[in-house]
């Protein structure tokens, strides 16, 4: 599982960080940093929730 973020769409709402702070982090510069580009399979439910809940649909999973 590889996480892909479309940074043209991302508006740093940090919803993903609220769901999976070990994977997504919005820092004080207001940019999103993906801490784990290829998280373990066990994280899939959380990543899928982040994909679904992202207000700008900026996150996707490439297998």
């Amino acid at each position, binding site marked *: 599982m590889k996480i892909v973020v479309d940074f043209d769409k991302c508006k740093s709402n940090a919803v993903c960080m*609220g769901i999976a*702070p070990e994977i997504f982090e919005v820092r004080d510069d207001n940019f999103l940093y993906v801490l784990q580009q290829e998280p373990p399979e066990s994280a899939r439910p959380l990543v899928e929730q982040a994909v679904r809940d992202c207000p700008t649909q900026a996150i996707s999973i490439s297998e």
Partner: protein
Amino acid sequence: MRTVAVVGTSLAGLRAMETFRREGYDGRIVAIGGEPHLPYDRPPLSKELLAGLSEPDDIRLRKQGVDDLDVEWMLGTRATALDLGARELTLANDTRIAYDGLVVATGSTPRRLPNQPELDGVFMLRTLDDALALRATLPAGPKVVVIGAGFIGAEVAATCRGRGLDVTVLEALPQPMVRGLGPELGAVIADMHRDHGVDLRTGVGVEAIEGDTRVERVRLADGEVIATDVVVVGVGVVPETPWLEGSGLELENGVVCDETCLAAPGVVAAGDVARFPNRLFDGELMRLEHWTNATEQGVHAARRLLAGDAGTDLVFAPVPFVWSDQYDRKIQTVGVVSGDCDLHVAHGSYSERQFVALFGRNDRIVGALGFNRARQVMQYRRLIADRASWDAALELANA
């Protein structure tokens, strides 16, 4: 279940349909929507789409398409009645649809002003068609009057200022969003709009919107007259429940559900239309009109319906989350924010328009509002979900 009907084809309804399929339901799904469009995203209607930065195609939900969901779409057709006992819906074209499970996700409708006239140039903003009609008037450089300084009114004002238009905002209360946020934060929002050139007038009543066939002026309660080309009315929404009158569902400012989103046997509700007790906030009845809730509750309601009698412990107890983009600011609230809470400001100041305001009640942190502080807001969201104490929140604020 062999047939699930989903009434309402916006975000909550779509998320429910996706969930049915993801959880392995392989029966029939019938989706009934009053609008002619496949599901699209509403937040951009008052922002990017109105600004001309995105087009209808850009704001489709589910970019990969909807074919894999195997849904029978009945679009441009409203449901007009529900027979709970017979488990049957009636549509505006008199079609009847029998269902085994039902998702009510009909959303909400903009509230009209009393005596609001049918004039060209007077708009409400809820649907894609509303937004395109309003947008089509903007290239001519109209003077715009926005009635109501809630989220929609404030975003329309900010977008229109971004297009260089002359904007007046009329708010009946002493500050924007004063009921939800209290006077202090209302003033911060008011100052921001004034600094961006909005003629914001608070504490003013609208007497009449006047014109011949097109709107020409707005008459205020104090007698003043404001000439205008466009009026946008943004004075809140009402849940779309008239079609359920007499159905036997309990209707009181929405479809009343239990804390699992169940409204009746075989019937769940989700999104703007659903009112439910939120266990995380001592069972306070909530009806949330926001994007994130539509997503979360749509998913939850579908799971609840699939679980049947085994689903009574599937409690929906979210931390509400709202965001609004105005000018160069991202305003976010989490939890319950209300003017009667204890207030503490951290991580910046009002004057920088970069801060987090914490809301406390009964020694608990119950809410937070951030201006350009997404990272911190999400940290407080976690505290709220964990029922953290007010002191624990202050500790994070002072760390």
